[in-house]
C-alpha cells in the first residue's frame, strides 16, 4: 500500500507535449493571465470553471472531512473535471501550488494524489508549483524569465481587479467596468501569447492606459459602504470557496477591496530571510528576500503610481505594509497568510475600508492567530474597525454567512449616515463609536 503511494506518476518533461494541464481556479482574473503565460511557454492548459454541489461532494467523498475547505474544493473540482469525460485521462495532468510552510496547505498535493488513487485515476500526474524546491521530480520547471512573466501577470491582474472594484459600484451605466475589464483581459492575454507585454518598459506603458480607461468610465461617486476582504488565500479570492462573496457584497451596494495577490507573493519572498534573521542562517539566506523584493518593487511602484495618478486608491508598498505589523504581530508568524493578514486588515482600516470580512475555512489553524486572534488588538487601536470573521466549510450555509455580513453592513451603513449627517446634528455618544476609544476589557 505504502509502496504503491510512493510510485505516483511523475510529470516528466515529455508530458509538456502530450498532456493537458488542468488549473484550479482561485483568483479568476489573475489566473486567466497566468494560464496564458503557461500556454505561451508551450503547455496546453485549461483553467477549470466547473462548480456546483458535486464539486464539494466529491471533495467530501475522497478527502478527510476535517481537512480544510479549500483542499476539499480544489480536489473536488479536479475530480469532477476528470469525471466529466471531457478529458483524455491518459493525457491529462493537474497542477497545484505548494507553499512548503508549516500549515496544512503544504500537504494538499499529497491529499490530491491519495484522492486520485482512491477515485480510480492513478495515472494522472500532479505538478507542484512551488518556490521551495519541494517535489523535485514533479515540480513545475521555473526559469527566471518565466518567473518574471508570472509576476508581471499578477500585477496586471491586481491592477484590473483594483480598477474595476473602485469603478463598478459608482458607474452610471451598469456593466461598463466589467466590460472594460474583460476587454483588457483579452488584450493582455493576447500580448502574453505573443510573448509581449511583460518587460518593465512595456508594463510602464500599458498600466497607465489601463487605469486611464477605467478612470474615463462615467461615474457618480456617492458615499458607499467600503468593505475590505482578507483571509485564507483560497476562500478570500475564489468565488467557489466564498459563496460568491464579492458578488454578494456588490449586491448590498458596497465597494469591495480585495488586497492584491502580489502581496502574498511578496510575503512568501519576504519570509525566508526573516526566518534566517530570527533563527540564524547563511548570508545568502539572510539577503535573498531583499533582492527579490527589490526586483518586484520596480513593478509595484508603477502600479501604485498609476492608480494614484488616476484618482484611485492605491495599496501601500510592501515595505510599508510590513511596518504596519509593529505592535500587533511579529513578522515571524509565517504560516498560512501569517502576519500579512493582520497587516492587510490594518492597512484596510487605515485606508477607510474599515469594514472587513475576514474569511477562513472552518478550523483554519493559522487564522486562529493572525485573523481572529488579532481582531481585539486591532479594535483597541482602531475603534472604527468593524471586522467580522466568517468561516467557510461544506456545511456552513450561505444564509448564515450572509446574515453575519449583513450585520456588519448594517453597522457600516449607520456610520456612513452619521458621517453624512456630520456636524449638522450632535449625535449621542453611544452612536458614535469611532470617536470614542474602546473601554479596555477588564480581567
Amino acid at each position, binding site marked *: 500500500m*505504502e509502496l504503491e503511494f*510512493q510510485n505516483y506518476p511523475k510529470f516528466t518533461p515529455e508530458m509538456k507535449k502530450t498532456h493537458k494541464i488542468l488549473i484550479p481556479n482561485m483568483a479568476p482574473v489573475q489566473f486567466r493571465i497566468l494560464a496564458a503565460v503557461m500556454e505561451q511557454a508551450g503547455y496546453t492548459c485549461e483553467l477549470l470553471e466547473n462548480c456546483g*454541489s458535486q464539486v464539494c461532494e466529491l471533495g*467530501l*467523498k475522497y478527502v*478527510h472531512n476535517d*481537512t*480544510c475547505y479549500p483542499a476539499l474544493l480544489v480536489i473536488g473540482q479536479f475530480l469532477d473535471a476528470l469525471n466529466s469525460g471531457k478529458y483524455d485521462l491518459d493525457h491529462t495532468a493537474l497542477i497545484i501550488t505548494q507553499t512548503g510552510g*508549516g*500549515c*496544512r496547505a*503544504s*500537504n494538499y498535493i*499529497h*491529499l490530491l*494524489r491519495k484522492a486520485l488513487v*482512491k477515485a480510480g485515476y492513478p495515472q494522472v500526474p500532479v505538478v507542484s508549483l512551488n518556490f521551495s524546491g519541494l517535489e523535485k521530480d514533479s515540480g513545475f520547471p521555473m526559469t527566471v524569465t518565466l518567473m518574471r512573466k508570472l509576476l508581471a501577470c499578477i500585477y496586471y491582474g491586481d491592477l484590473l481587479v483594483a480598477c474595476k472594484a473602485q469603478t463598478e459600484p459608482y458607474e452610471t451605466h451598469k456593466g461598463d467596468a466589467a466590460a472594460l475589464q474583460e476587454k483588457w483581459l483579452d488584450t493582455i492575454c493576447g500580448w502574453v501569447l505573443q510573448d509581449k507585454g511583460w518587460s518593465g518598459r512595456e508594463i510602464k506603458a500599458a498600466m497607465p492606459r489601463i487605469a486611464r480607461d477605467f478612470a474615463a468610465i462615467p461615474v457618480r461617486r456617492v458615499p458607499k459602504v467600503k468593505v475590505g476582504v482578507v483571509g485564507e488565500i483560497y476562500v478570500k479570492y475564489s468565488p467557489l470557496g466564498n459563496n460568491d462573496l464579492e458578488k454578494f457584497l456588490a449586491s448590498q451596494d458596497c465597494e469591495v477591496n480585495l488586497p492584491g495577490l502580489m502581496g502574498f507573493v511578496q510575503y512568501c519572498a519576504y519570509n525566508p530571510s526573516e526566518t534566517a534573521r*530570527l*533563527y*540564524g542562517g547563511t548570508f545568502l539566506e539572510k539577503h535573498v528576500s531583499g533582492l527579490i523584493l527589490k526586483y518586484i518593487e520596480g513593478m509595484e511602484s508603477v502600479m501604485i503610481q498609476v492608480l494614484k495618478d488616476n484618482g484611485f486608491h492605491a495599496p501601500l508598498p510592501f515595505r510599508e505594509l510590513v511596518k504596519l505589523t509593529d505592535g*500587533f*504581530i*511579529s513578522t515571524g*508568524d*509565517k*504560516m*498560512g497568510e501569517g502576519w500579512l493578514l493582520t497587516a492587510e486588515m490594518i492597512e484596510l482600516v487605515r485606508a477607510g475600508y474599515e469594514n472587513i470580512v475576514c474569511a477562513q475555512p472552518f478550523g*483554519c*489553524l*493559522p487564522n*486562529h492567530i*493572525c485573523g481572529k*486572534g488579532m*481582531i*481585539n*488588538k486591532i479594535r483597541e487601536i482602531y475603534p472604527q474597525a468593524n471586522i467580522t*470573521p466568517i468561516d467557510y*466549510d*461544506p*456545511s*456552513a*450555509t*450561505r*444564509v448564515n454567512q*450572509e*446574515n453575519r455580513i449583513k*450585520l456588519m*453592513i*448594517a*453597522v457600516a451603513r449607520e456610520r456612513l449616515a452619521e458621517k453624512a449627517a456630520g456636524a449638522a446634528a450632535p449625535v449621542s*455618544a*453611544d452612536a458614535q*463609536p469611532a470617536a470614542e*476609544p*474602546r*473601554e*479596555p*476589557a*477588564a*480581567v
Partner: protein
Amino acid sequence: MKVGLDVGSTTIKCVVMDDAENLVYSTYERHYSHILEKSEELLRRAAERYVPGGRAFLAISGSAGMGMAESVGVPFVQEVFATRVAAGRLAPGTDCIIELGGEDAKILFLTGGMEVRMNGSCAGGTGAFIDQMATLLKMSADEMDAAAQKAEKTYTIASRCGVFAKSDVQPLINQGARAEDISASIYQAVVNQTIAGLAQGRPIKGNVLYLGGPLTFSRCLRESFDHTLGVQGTCPENSLLYVALGAAYYSDQTFDLIQVADDLQKHGAAETYRSQPPLFSSEEEYEAFRARHAKAAVPRVPFGADYAAPVHIGIDSGSTTVKVVVIDQEARILFTDYRPNLGNPVPLIRQVLQQLYDEHLALHVASVTTTGYGEDLAKNAFHADYGVVETVAHFTAARHFLPNVDFIIDIGGQDMKCFKIEDGAISNIFLNEACSSGCGSFLQTFAQALGYDVKEFAKLGLFADRPVDLGSRCTVFMNSSVKQAQKDGATIENISAGLSISVVKNAIYKVIRASSPEELGRNIVVQGGTFYNEAVLRAFEKEMGVEVIRPDIAGLMGAFGAALYGRGKAVPGQTSALLDREGLAGFRQETESRICGLCGNNCQLTVNTFADGATFISGNRCDRPVTGKADTGERNLYAYKRKLILGYKPVPGKRGKLGLPLCLNFWELLPFWHTFFTKLGFAVYHSPLSSRDLYLKGQGTIPSDTACFPAKLAHGHIHFLSKLGLDTIFYPCMTYNIDEGLGDNHYNCPVVAYYPEVIAGNCPEIKETRFIYDYVGLHRPKDFTKKIFTILRQYFPDITKGEVKEASDAAYAEYAHHMSLVRKEGERIIDQARAEGRRIIVLAGRPYHVDPEVNHGIDTLITRAGAAVVTEDSISNRVEKFPTTVLNQWTYHSRLYAAARYCCSQPDMDLVQLVSFGCGVDAITSDETREILQAGGKLYTQLKIDEITNLGAVRIRLRSLFAALDEQDEKRNEPRKEA
C-alpha cells in the same frame, strides 16, 4: 401604519403599529418551518383586520427572513440591528442586550463602544438546544424551568456545542441523576456558552436587557445569567417582539400587503432548492424492496406460561432505550421488549424481569448478559452473569444472520457504530465521536419540531419526488439547511426524504469516510432502530449501490447479540446468578450524587445503592473510590511524565520571579526553560496541571471558539500566573521544533508555534506584568544562544553573554536528560508489561496530551483495563526515518508516524491515537497513521477529545479494541484447521 415581520428559526413574529407608533396588533407563533405559508398568512391577517386599505410600511427581519424578503423585494433589516433600533426607542439607557433565539445567541454592547456579537457557526447553546435537552428529559420547556427551580446542585455540562452537551446529559440521565439538577445544569451551560462564546473577554455590566423566547419563558435561565454576571437584568414588556418592532420602526417603504402575500405564495410554488433523485421510482420497486427485506427474520417460538427449558436473556441498556431479548437454546426468539428508558433504565429492566417471572412460573434462566451504555449498572443491579461491550454484542448478532458478514453498520439513537470484519474478527471500528449528526435522535427531534411522529415523518419521504439535498455535517447546521430548503418551497415529504439521505451520507462520508462500496465489503448487515426507517434503509442501499441485510430485529440486535453471547459462554445446565423472585420483588435502588474527594480530581460520583447493600459507583476516573487504593501509575508513562514535569520547583534567585505557562509545547520544553532561567538566576514558577476551574477562569479571553482545547487552556494558565505576583511571564513563539531527523521538516503546528501572539493580543492579564514572547528556535543551538541573549538583554541589561551560554548549555543538557528519562522509563514499563504478559498501548498524541484535563484520564482508563501505557516519544527513536505518503513536516507528528511504524514490528504493542477536536493537522496525520498501522496488520484506534468529560464512548472503543485484540490472539493461537 407600520408592519414588522420577524421570521426566526423556530417562531414568527408580526407587529402592526399605527402612525403614532402605538402597537395595535402583535403575534408570536411557532412556524413549524412553514415559513412561507405562515408569513403569507400573517400578512393577510394584518392587511384584512388591522391595516385599512392594505397598504403599510413594511420591513422583514429574522434569521430565516433574509432570502425570503429579497425574493419579494421587501427591505430586509438584519435582526441584531433591528433589536438595537427597538431598544433605542423602548429601553433607553440599556448598556447591554442578551438575546437568545431559536438558534441564535447574540450580545449587543450599546455603550462604551458599540459592538454586536453573534454565535459562531459552531455554537448550539440556544433555544433549539434547550428544546432538544427538554425532549431528552421528557419534559416540556415549562416543566424543565419549573424543575430547575428545585435544583440542589449543578453538573458540569460541556458548553460549546449542543451535541457535546447532549453526550454529557445522557450519561447523567443513565446514571440516575435528578432531573431537577440536570435541568438547572442545562441552563447554566447555556449561560456559560453565551458568555464564553460571545462576550470574549468584554465584561457585561450595567443595565442588561433579556430578549427572545428562552429568556422570556424561563425564569431560571434569567436567574442563572443574573447570578453568573452579578447583575440584575430585566426582561422588558414585548421582549419577544423587539426584532419585529425594530423592523417596523425601520421600515421606510410602503407595500400592498396582499400583493406581498401573493408574491410569497408564488415564490413558494417555484421550488428552487437543490434536489436529488427520489428514493423509489414506483410502487412496484417499493414492494420488491419490502419483500426482500422481509426475508431476514429470526424464527420465533411460543413462550407459554409453563415454559421450562433453559433460556438466555440479553439486556441492552442503550442511550435512549432499553431492549430485552429472551432466546432458547436454539437461538430462537421467545420474547422481546423495547422501550424508551425515560432517564433511568433500572426500574424498566426490573419491570421486564418481573413480568418474565410472573408470566412464566417455571422459568429457568441459564444466563443473563448485559450490554450498552448502562451495561455495568444493569449487571450490578440485577446480578447478571456477563457484561459484553456493545460492539461485540452487535457483531455476535450480525454473524448469526450472515456468517460471512464483513461490514456492520448500526445507527442508534445518538450513536453510530460501524465495524469492518476481517478474518472473523473486528478489524476496524468507527464510532461517531463527539458528533451525533444524523443519528436517530436527530430525526426524531426534527420530526417532533415539525409536528410529526417520527414513523409517520419517515414514511412521508418514501415517495417524495424531489428529495432536498442537505449537507452532510453537523446536526446544528442541518437545521439551517432545512430552513433554507423550506423557504425555497420544499415540501415536508421532500424534506423528510432529504433528512433520511443525510443520515446515510453522514454515516458513510463522515464517520466511515468510505469512497466505494467495495471498500466497505459486500456482505453488509445494517441494524439499529434507525434502519426500521425504510427511507434511511433505501437511501443507504442507493448510496452504497449494494443490497444489504436488515434483520427484522434490527433495533434489538444488541440485546439479541448479548443473549447469544451468554448462550455461548454458559455451560450446560447452568443457572444464572440473576436475582431470584424474592430478590427482584424486594429490589430497591437509591441514587446519590457526591464528590469523591479522595484526590484533587474531585470526580462527581453517582452512587447507586441496591436493596442487598451492594453499591455501584459511576463517574469515577480511577478505582480509588471503589477499592480505596490509589493508582500507583507504575504501568503508566503518562503518569511518569507528569511526575517529572511537576518535579521542577522554583529556586530563589537574584533576578526575580519568572513564570512559565504549563500549556502546549511547555509540556515538553519545561525542563529546558526551567533550567535555562534557573541558571540565569530567576526563581522559575510554572502554572499547575490544568483543571476545569483553571479553564473557566481563562475562557473569557479566548478569541476563536474553534481552536483546539489545549490551546484554549493557555488562557487559564496565563490567568493563573498573573495572580502569582511575578515580574515576568515567558512564553516564546517557535515556528520550528527540535529536529529529530524523523521527518522532511520540523515545524510546530501553527497554533503551537504562534499561540503567544494570541495571548499578547487578547489577555489583559499580561498588561500587569512583563510578557516576553519573542521568536526563538531551539533547532540551532548556537544561533539560539546568540538570539536569546539579544532578547533578554532588552529586558535585563545586566545579563552577560557568558551567563547565557552557560545557561543554554545546561538547558540543552537537561532537555536531553529529560527525554532520556522518558525513554528509559518507557523501556522499563515495556519490559515489565512483557514479563507480566500485559498488552502495551502506545497512547500517541502530543506532549500536551499528558495533561489530565486534556486527556480526561484516558491513560488511567487503559491501565485500569490491565494494559500498560507508553508515549509516542518514548519509542519514536527506535525507527529510522522512512518515506510517508504525506509531507512529514511537524516534529510531534513525525514521532507519531515513527511510533506507528514501530508498533507494526511488535506483536504485543498497539497504538491508540489521541486527537484534539479542532486539530486541523490531525485531519492529515490520522489518515496517515491509519495507513501505516493497517499496512503492518494492526488495528487503528482514534480517540477524539475535547473539553467534554464523558468517557463512555472512549470506554466502548477501548473495550472493543481489547475484545478485537483478544479475538485475534485466540485465532492466532488456534491451530490452523485447513491444510
